[in-house]
């Protein structure tokens, strides 16, 4: 059977609509719509995909606009440009990759969280935060009254901010400590 001959969308080809299947798909051209694959989706450097994707794994070298749900791995290579929310148990972001959107690695056990979260966080934070200011100020009111001067504190220590969302609870006291330390200095 020709089953292992992967599907290729060549550079000069544009597909719009719904794509479904149980094999790997390599995109060198353009793909628009929705993608449901039991297999890997590969987006080449010159390729552009505007689609909601549900795949086993995803590898991006080119441009991707749309939300992705992967059951295994999402990997953004240095030339990747992504706008959309990514959900997968493993998300790998290489240096140089740019994205705006949310990354969700699902339920994390406490031991695994710090290493996993941090490796991905610095790469996406700078682009992610301006687009979603709402997500940052939200925790502030939740803090107890003593941190009333919080507004100036975050501004002062902006660089070390990239903490994974899931650690916010844990991070809050640490931030407070850092803030007071800074205040003393």
């Amino acid at each position, binding site marked *: *059977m*020709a089953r292992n001959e992967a599907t290729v969308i*060549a550079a000069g*080809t*544009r*597909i719009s609509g719904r794509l479904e299947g149980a*094999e790997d798909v390599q995109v060198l051209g353009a793909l628009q719509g929705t993608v449901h694959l039991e297999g890997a989706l590969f987006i080449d450097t010159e390729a552009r995909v505007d689609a909601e994707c549900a795949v086993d794994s995803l590898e991006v070298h080119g441009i991707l606009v749309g939300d992705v749900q992967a059951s295994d791995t999402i990997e953004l290579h240095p030339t990747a440009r992504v706008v959309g929310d990514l959900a997968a148990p493993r998300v790998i972001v290489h240096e140089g990759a740019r994205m705006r959107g949310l990354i969700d690695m699902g339920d994390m056990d406490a031991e695994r969280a710090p290493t996993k979260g941090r490796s991905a966080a610095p790469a996406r934070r700078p682009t992610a935060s301006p687009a979603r200011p709402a997500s940052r100020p939200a925790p502030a009111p939740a803090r107890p009254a003593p941190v009333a001067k919080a507004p100036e504190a975050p501004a002062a220590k902006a660089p070390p901010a990239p903490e994974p969302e899931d650690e916010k609870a844990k991070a809050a006291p640490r931030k407070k400590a850092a803030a007071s330390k800074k205040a003393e200095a």
Partner: protein
Amino acid sequence: MANTVIGSSIVIDGEIAGEEPIIVQGTVKGRIAVSESVFVESAATIEADVEADTVEVAGVLTGNVTAGARVELKADSKMVGDIKSPRILIADGALFKGNIDMDVER
């Protein structure tokens, strides 16, 4: 340059356009419009209007075909729809129902 290949397990519902040859092993519904050739392989199912330079059908095609150069229906192919092309070949064993238009400019 690599051809576009639509693998056997793939179903596309929509439109394919481009400047590359397309090989279909799976299923395509909707429309195919390319400036090169379209190969419909024996396991493939096409429910679409096809515009291309050349079209070769070994599988099942339902829809109208317009080719700039040539349409070939191979043995064991099935096609329902109209064909418009200057050259049309229908092999022994091919099933076809539809109009043929070889209205060449002359």
